[in-house]
């Protein structure tokens, strides 16, 4: 199974985690992150969100990020699932799950993958608000989060 998937359908977080650990006895730690659509962003109510992506490049960018994580930490497995299309508040957008022997590596790699995904994977969000539809603007805080990993030594 591919480590990174892009899909319109909802995913099952419990199933994704179970796939990382099922039948294995060497996994000591799984760190998981799930991102959700909030009903409020930048002070406006959000009634719906549409995620556009760049088919082909998206999968490649996600695989590159996974490779980078494997190069930096001693990981056992990694899963990235990102949804596209129309989503409503409360729905999950993205899941990153990382398995490792020890927790430090799992936590660091999971946060790293999210930070890189936020700045390097070609997805774009459009929100519907009472003021109309608008493209979500990129955040400087996401650039800062990704930049941390440029200089930080791996544990």
């Amino acid at each position: 199974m591919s480590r990174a998937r892009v899909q319109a359908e909802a995913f099952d977080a419990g199933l994704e985690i179970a796939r990382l650990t099922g039948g294995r006895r060497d996994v000591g730690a799984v760190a998981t992150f799930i991102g959700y659509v909030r009903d409020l962003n930048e002070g406006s109510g959000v009634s719906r969100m549409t995620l556009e992506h760049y088919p082909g490049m998206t999968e490649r960018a996600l695989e590159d990020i996974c490779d980078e994580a494997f190069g930096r930490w001693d990981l056992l497995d990694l899963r990235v699932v990102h949804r596209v299309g129309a989503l409503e508040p409360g729905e999950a957008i993205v899941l990153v799950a990382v398995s490792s022997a020890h927790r430090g590596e799992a936590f660091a790699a999971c946060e790293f993958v999210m930070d890189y995904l936020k700045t390097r994977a070609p997805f774009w969000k459009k929100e519907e608000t009472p003021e109309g539809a608008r493209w979500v603007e990129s955040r400087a805080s996401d650039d800062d989060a990704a930049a941390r990993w440029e200089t930080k030594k791996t544990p």
Partner: protein
Amino acid sequence: MKLTLLYFASLRERLECPMERVEMSVPTGDVAGIVSQLRSRGGIWNEAFAPGRAWRISVNQRMATLESSVVEGDEIAFFPPVTGG
């Protein structure tokens, strides 16, 4: 040279163009040369690709810059900063 050009998100909407296959002369052999041709179309094209605008570039599905080389058959995409996750 023959190129495939893609536009995404707000840039796609603004240009009203998701994709085009073009035959384009790019003497400099880089992305900047393509952008220069696109701007020469005038109007919204000139505005959208004005310097200082926050748009990103990929060449053959990898992040690239204005200085990146392009050759016959390449797939070049233009898009705003990404906002997934």
